[in-house]
């Protein structure tokens, strides 16, 4: 096999991969042309949870391979959890290499094969990873053209590529295919160049609608999720959990559990696990363990939490400030003060956290439903004492993440137990565990003081965030005097939350957009102006203005002052580099407080849209999922005791909730691509709150809008 190893800049490769040895890598993937790359600073480091952050590797990792049969394999540390990148990344690769879309195979989330990646979150795949992938493809295409040029005896400039075949433009009988060029060769190229901005208009696959590439395997039950894997001798493990996050075990008796046929009980420090080849028997054994606990709970619950957060988040940091609030006060004719509340919300993917671990010799392999395979690999190195090259994490299809599968505690649990028992161990969290260990969307309080002058121009904006985060807290509107302050706790201080919190689809933006857009609506109504007109008057950002106009057009919006009794709401915002505007129509039953969303529309500017069908599906998903945090999702708790442990009390959106949904994606083919997995969810709460006000004159300041809260607000009208 001919072997050629050079850098893109001509120097011979000297750095070694940090993961598995090269020979093992090639044993797995075979020959052809392989483009390696080194992640640059720009690649996916923002949005990385601190616990999973590691210094960026300086070595090279495979990025794409043109195999000997002409198949293009694209390696990415990203994972597929329903967001559709298995389809859209393949489209991009097909375009960049001029191969048929069907020839591209995505290899995802395998730490031994794929380039390092922080994780799949923040709607970053297309906007941050995509350009690097295109640069790698351009490099590969260059290699192939050079090879074809020498083989055909024709200068590169005279060659053209179509569907993986390179042809002499002056003699179309003189041609060679990618597979003919790569057969029996192993060419490694090391890419060091930074990607350049692309002209996306030149592409053919990009911008065209493709259906989910994984649809057929998913409708036939063939698609493998972590829990669907099985290894010889595999044991199911159930782990004893405390009743509350503030509980400490004082005594335990597992003698009865050990009597359940085929059960092994493992105690390792605080962890007590029962293992059985039969899932039901593991369940049964777990139920037989008797344990007692002492409790030390924070005196906070879902009733008093909002006062608690304002009281204990004492570290104030000004996030942004322009002009001077005093001046803003003076210029304002009317001042408005509001306080908004948003509770803890669960991720509730239908697939619970699952992992399978196997120790072979000194190498640990963990299959896990995780948004961060490399993050889990790091955690395993840290907590189990493996070296990096002795831990492989593989991510099969993931059954929903939404931010909740960035942490992968279940992977550590499975690996520990596999190490202790010497057998393959499967950990499938129960629904109860999924709720208990969820890293909830953090509860938060937003206080806003704002002012408008006689012409309806916003002159003052004093925005204060307590406990939740700053994403989406940009003022958005043109306000000469504005200040945004984030009130949190010091990193060294204990958390004010009695349990873990984390990123939830468009983290914190749902809270901030709810507060901002309701406050805007309050001012529009007080100014006696149509809420769309008020927004357009106070906006300069052309992206949001275009989205508002597009959604108004799609919705058939007719201007009117609020409350008009019609039940129509407007809201807008920005997230993950994209812009969105929403309109909704609701009906409110004033006797029961029940709200029905009749229709909802959303216009989105996401720059270039790689797969319009995939992006539309994401928008529909956002609008539907958003109804949950708007109407029902709220974690009840007492200290560290999570009271919602299942779908019996925690209600997620159902078919009967479904409104008519309309979506518009603005044509921005000449703009760089932006995020698409999250933006459309951010304004669902706000647009519905504003629609309820328009219907009834009742203002809602606390999400979710349960019938009880709607009735309470109606009393104040």
């Amino acid at each position, binding site marked *: 096999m001919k072997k050629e190893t050079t850098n893109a800049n001509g120097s011979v490769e000297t750095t070694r991969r940090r993961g598995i040895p090269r020979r093992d890598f090639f044993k797995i993937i075979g020959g052809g042309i392989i483009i390696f790359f080194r992640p640059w600073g720009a690649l996916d480091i923002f949005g990385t949870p601190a616990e999973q952050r590691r210094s960026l590797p300086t070595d090279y990792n495979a990025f794409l391979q043109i195999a000997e049969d002409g198949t293009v394999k694209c390696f990415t540390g990203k994972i597929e959890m329903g967001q559709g990148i298995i389809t859209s990344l393949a489209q991009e690769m097909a375009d960049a290499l001029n191969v048929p879309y069907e020839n591209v195979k995505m290899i995802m989330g395998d730490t031994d094969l794929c380039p390092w990646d922080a994780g799949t979150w923040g709607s970053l795949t297309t906007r941050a990873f995509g350009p690097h992938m295109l640069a790698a493809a351009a490099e590969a295409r260059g290699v192939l053209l050079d090879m074809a040029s020498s083989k055909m005896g024709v200068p590169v400039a005279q060659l053209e590529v179509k569907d993986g075949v390179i042809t002499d433009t002056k003699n179309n009988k003189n041609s060679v295919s990618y597979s003919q060029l790569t057969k029996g060769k192993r060419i490694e190229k090391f890419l060091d160049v930074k990607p350049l901005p692309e002209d996306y208009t030149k592409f053919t696959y990009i911008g065209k609608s493709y259906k989910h590439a994984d649809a057929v395997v998913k409708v036939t039950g*063939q698609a493998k999720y972590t829990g669907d894997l099985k290894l010889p001798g595999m044991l199911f493990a159930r782990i004893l959990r405390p009743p509350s996050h503030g509980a400490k075990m004082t005594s335990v008796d597992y003698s009865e559990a050990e009597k359940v046929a085929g059960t092994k009980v493992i105690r390792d420090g605080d962890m007590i696990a029962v293992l059985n080849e039969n899932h039901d028997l593991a369940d049964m054994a777990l139920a037989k363990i008797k344990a007692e606990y002492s409790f030390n709970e924070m005196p906070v619950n879902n009733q008093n939490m909002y006062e608690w957060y304002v009281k204990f988040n004492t570290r104030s940091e000004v996030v942004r400030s322009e002009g001077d609030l005093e001046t803003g006060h003076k210029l304002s004719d009317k001042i408005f003060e509001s306080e908004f509340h948003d509770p803890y919300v669960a991720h509730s993917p239908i697939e619970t956290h699952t992992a399978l671990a196997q120790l072979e010799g000194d190498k640990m392999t963990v299959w896990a439903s995780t948004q961060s395979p490399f993050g889990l690999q790091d955690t395993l190195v840290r907590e189990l004492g493996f070296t990096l090259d002795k831990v492989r994490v593989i991510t099969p299809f993931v059954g929903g993440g939404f931010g909740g599968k960035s942490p992968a505690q279940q992977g550590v649990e499975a690996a520990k137990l596999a190490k202790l028992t010497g057998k393959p161990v499967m950990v499938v969290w129960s629904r109860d565990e999924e709720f208990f260990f969820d890293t909830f969307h953090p509860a938060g309080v937003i206080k806003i003081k704002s002012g408008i002058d006689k012409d309806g121009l916003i002159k003052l904006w004093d925005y204060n965030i307590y406990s939740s985060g700053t994403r989406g807290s940009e003022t958005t509107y043109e306000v000469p005097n504005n200040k945004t302050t984030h009130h949190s706790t010091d990193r060294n201080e204990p958390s004010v939350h009695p349990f873990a919190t984390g990123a939830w689809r468009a983290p914190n933006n749902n809270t901030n957009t709810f507060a901002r857009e309701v406050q805007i609506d309050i001012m529009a109504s007080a100014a006696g102006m149509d809420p769309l007109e008020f927004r357009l008057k106070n906006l300069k950002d052309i992206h949001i203005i275009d989205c508002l106009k597009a959604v108004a057009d799609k919705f058939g919006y007719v201007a009117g002052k609020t409350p008009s009794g019609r039940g129509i709401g407007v809201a807008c915002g920005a997230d993950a580099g994209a812009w969105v505007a929403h309109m909704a129509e609701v009906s409110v039953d004033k006797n029961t407080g029940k709200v029905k969303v009749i229709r909802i529309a959303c216009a989105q500017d996401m720059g270039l849209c790689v797969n319009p069908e995939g992006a539309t*599906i994401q928008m529909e998903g956002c609008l539907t999922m958003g109804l949950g945090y708007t109407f029902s999702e709220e974690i009840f708790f007492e200290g560290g005791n999570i009271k919602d442990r299942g779908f019996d009390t925690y209600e997620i959106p159902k078919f009967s909730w479904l409104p008519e949904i309309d979506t518009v994606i603005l044509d921005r083919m000449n703009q760089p691509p932006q995020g698409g997995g999250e933006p459309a969810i951010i304004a669902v709460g706000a647009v519905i709150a504003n629609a309820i006000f328009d219907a009834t004159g009742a203002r809602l300041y606390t999400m979710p809008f349960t019938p009880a809260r709607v009735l309470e607000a109606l009393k104040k009208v």
Partner: protein
Amino acid sequence: MEKTISFELNGKKTEALIDPGETLLWALRNHFGLTGTKFGCGMGFCGSCTVLIDNEPVRSCQLSIGEVAGKKVVTIEGLSTDGKLHPVQKAFVEHDALQCGYCTPGMIMNATGLLIKNPSPTEQEIKDGMEDNYCRCGAHKRIIEAVQTASKEMKGGK
């Protein structure tokens, strides 16, 4: 105690020496290797473990293998015949009525059961019939459209 259980599984007469008390869901997944039937909550709330028993959609996490003795069980793997997708599966692909795909087998089995009972459901009847199958990604709109399309095809395009 293990016992021989006889039933029809995906059109085939099946006998298994198994603890009749074992949950049908885990027996299907772990004993028969039919992992298309998913665990979602184990309490009958989410519907991702739905299978057909004598043409009725049933939550396999709420039933023991012993209870299906003598009955006909169809899982997602048994829905397509000779490599040809069932009209409901085909409609789910056509409408892109899925995202993460984890609830999809349960959705398809439930929709199939619904259409066997009521071949011409109204949109409201589809929503009512699918109500207790949960999808977290928010594919509901397309799932309803897919069931409508499948209903037409199953009636021969009438």
